[in-house]
């Protein structure tokens, strides 16, 4: 089934109409009591079955009605176009109705049917005789002369009839004149309306022209705006590309710097022959202080320290700012994250660590006030958790120096006092074999 444009499918509409029809049928008031039907007035079929007609009966109708009645009565059928045309032509030529009736009655078809019309035959023969040249003319003269009084009577009746008809026609004509007058008035009114409509149409046309001009202007503005937007878009895309290139270059440069700093730091630290033993000693001592599987976070102490913590059974995670250091530590299988220590401490959950180490506390405190550092330490360490701070060199402090920053010089006592002042307890030096110390302290409990 087809669909209506942008409308319900036609089948849906049809179903709705069906439902509505049922609903209307049920809600409609009852049908009015039917009046008895009128009796049909068409009697033609009954007439056609009669076997006898009188001449006045058949000839009282006029023109086409006469022919139709004659065909129906004498041939019992409607006139066929050819037959109708032929008999009509005779009537128009002034032949008598008697002759037409005779033509039909004594046609082969009429003879077969054989309807009786008393006195038609002699009058038909007489009418036909009048068609004989010369003799027929004289005969018609005689017949007309004989029937002159009757013709005159008919003439008088016809005069009266035509006078009455003439009067009716005149009345109708006057009526028509009045209607014509009214029609002319209406036409005049419509004509004036047409002029007014024309003026309004002109006005509308003018407004339409203005509107079109404005639309055209708006279209030009829109095109210009579109051009500008496209240009800006292009410019923004270029800018984004340039920024990306700059960012890439900067990142590249930072990677190069990190690699350089890491390389320098490892060279410098390699010169410190006592560092491995020192770190081993501290790591072993620290492991002794912590429970098995203790969680320890190291801040920027170098991957060698991280490796030693792990080597002593500690679950150590390192934080370093140098991407190269991070990369090397991960290559060695250590857990390390490249990030700012202050940010990592801020994100670490309260009391989640058993230990925190920072062997290069000087470089740490370059980027983080000591008060913030101590507060963070106390928050992230569990109660009794261990803090180890050293003042030695690590890759971070070496990198700081390379970046031109001053080194924060811390002596161990100063560190110890700082930690005690910060609320940690049991702050004491943790000596190595070569005599180097770092400071170890415990988190005493929640900060008051």
């Amino acid at each position: 089934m087809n669909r209506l444009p942008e409308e319900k499918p036609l089948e849906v509409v049809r179903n709705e109409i069906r439902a509505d029809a049922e609903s209307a049928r049920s809600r409609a008031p009852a049908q009015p009591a039917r009046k008895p039907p009128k009796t049909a007035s068409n009697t033609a079929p009954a007439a056609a079955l009669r076997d006898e007609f009188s001449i006045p009966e058949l000839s009282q109708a006029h023109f086409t009605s006469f022919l139709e009645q004659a065909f129906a009565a004498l041939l019992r059928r409607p006139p066929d176009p050819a037959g109708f045309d032929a008999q009509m032509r005779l009537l128009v030529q002034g032949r008598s109705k008697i002759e037409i009736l005779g033509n039909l009655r004594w046609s082969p078809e009429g003879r077969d049917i054989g309807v009786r019309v008393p006195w038609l035959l002699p009058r038909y023969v007489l009418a036909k005789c009048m068609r004989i040249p010369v003799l027929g003319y004289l005969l018609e003269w005689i017949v007309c002369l004989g029937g002159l009084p009757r013709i005159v009577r008919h003439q008088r009746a016809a005069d009266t009839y035509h006078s009455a008809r003439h009067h009716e026609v005149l009345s109708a004509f006057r009526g028509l004149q009045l209607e014509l007058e009214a029609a002319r008035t209406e036409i005049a009114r419509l004509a004036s309306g047409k002029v007014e409509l024309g003026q309004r149409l002109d006005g509308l046309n003018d407004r339409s022209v203005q509107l079109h001009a404005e639309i055209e202007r708006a279209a030009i503005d829109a095109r210009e705006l579109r051009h500008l937007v496209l240009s800006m878009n292009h410019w923004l895309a270029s800018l984004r590309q340039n920024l990306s290139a700059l960012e890439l270059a900067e990142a590249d440069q930072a990677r190069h710097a990190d690699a350089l700093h890491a390389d320098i730091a490892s060279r410098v630290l390699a010169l410190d022959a006592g560092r491995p033993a020192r770190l081993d000693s501290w790591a072993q001592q620290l492991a002794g202080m912590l429970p098995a599987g203790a969680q320890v976070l190291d801040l920027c102490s170098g991957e060698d320290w991280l490796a030693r913590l792990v080597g002593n059974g500690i679950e150590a995670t390192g934080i370093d700012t140098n991407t190269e250091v991070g990369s090397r530590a991960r290559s060695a299988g250590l857990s390390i994250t490249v990030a700012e220590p202050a940010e990592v401490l801020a994100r670490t959950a309260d009391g989640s660590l058993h230990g925190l180490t920072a062997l290069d506390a000087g470089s740490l405190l370059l980027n983080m006030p000591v008060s913030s550092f101590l507060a963070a330490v106390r928050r992230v360490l569990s109660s009794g958790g261990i803090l180890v701070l050293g003042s030695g060199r690590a890759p971070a402090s070496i990198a700081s120096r390379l970046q031109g920053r001053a080194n924060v010089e811390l002596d161990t006592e100063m560190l110890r006092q700082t930690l005690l002042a910060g609320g940690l307890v049991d702050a004491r030096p943790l000596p190595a074999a070569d005599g180097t110390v770092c400071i170890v302290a415990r988190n005493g409990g929640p900060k008051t």
Partner: protein
Amino acid sequence: MKAAILIPVLTSKDAVGADALAMASILEELGIETRVFCQSASGVERKTYPPERLPQFAGGPRDLVIYHYSTGWPAAVELLGRCRGFRIIKYHNITPPEFFSDVSADYEIACRKGRQEIATIATLGCELYLGASAYNLRELERAGMPVARGGVLAPFHRVAEIVEAEGDVALIKQLTDGSHNFLMVGRVAPNKGHLALVDAFDAYVRGYSADARLIILGKIDPRLDRYTTAITGRIDELDLSDRVLWIEAASEAQLKAAYLASHVFMLLSEHEGFCVPLIESMAVGTPIVAHASSAVPETLGDAGLIWEERDPWLYAASAARLFGDDALRAAMLERARLRYRQQFSVEVLRERFTRFLEPVL
């Protein structure tokens, strides 16, 4: 080459006459000398000739004869048998006599004779048979016409003249009083379904709104008085006399006015060979609700609401829906205009007619 149009009675205003005259004009525009042969003519300016002269004018092997078959006429069969050129039968259909059985014995006999002639015409061996619709063509096929010689050509019509005509202002004024107008156009004959139309109109008045008018526009034939009386009797029974307007012998302006002022064209006819008023409605823009009988579905297509059932409430509900559903009405009218333009405009019909003539041109 000469061309002859053969038609029993030529009247400019009936559908068959309009078709015949249009064909004659087109043939002349194609440069073919053309004459119209008929027994009688009325209201036609064109000169016509007696049928018996046809073989003398266009009976040669290179001539063309087109017979418009719409009534029984034995003389035509005899004339066609005497022509040796390209013979075309244009079949407009003949109403089955059963429709007239209780109405008019004259019409019943005339229609029976006319339909009895179908087999003779179909097997006459003419070179081309054109049905005004596929429905008509199927009748010829069933009567023995060779299928390969058949084609469909809708009748040429005077719809463009109606569209261009000025409507009768007084009638429009009379009809635009706020009532919904139901229109039926067609001669008052028993196959046209006027009784069912009155029932549907009554259903609308009782079920939806009493502000409605039924306009029955068409020639009233005194010989079908029994049928006309049955219609008026039904109207009286249903107490609808005040709501029914009869317009007999309408002028072009009145016809246009009736289409313009009507809200629905409702056709419940039971037999149509094509139905020109449908395409008049399509062209002028009157929504259509119709009963799917004979050639009506084919002519209407999807340009109106059409029902197989005869239930008057369906037609009443369809009219009510069209009155209230602007989108549906607009869509129907758009389709109707499109269908008229694509299928039934004179330009389209002319192109199809010329294509059918290609073998002889």
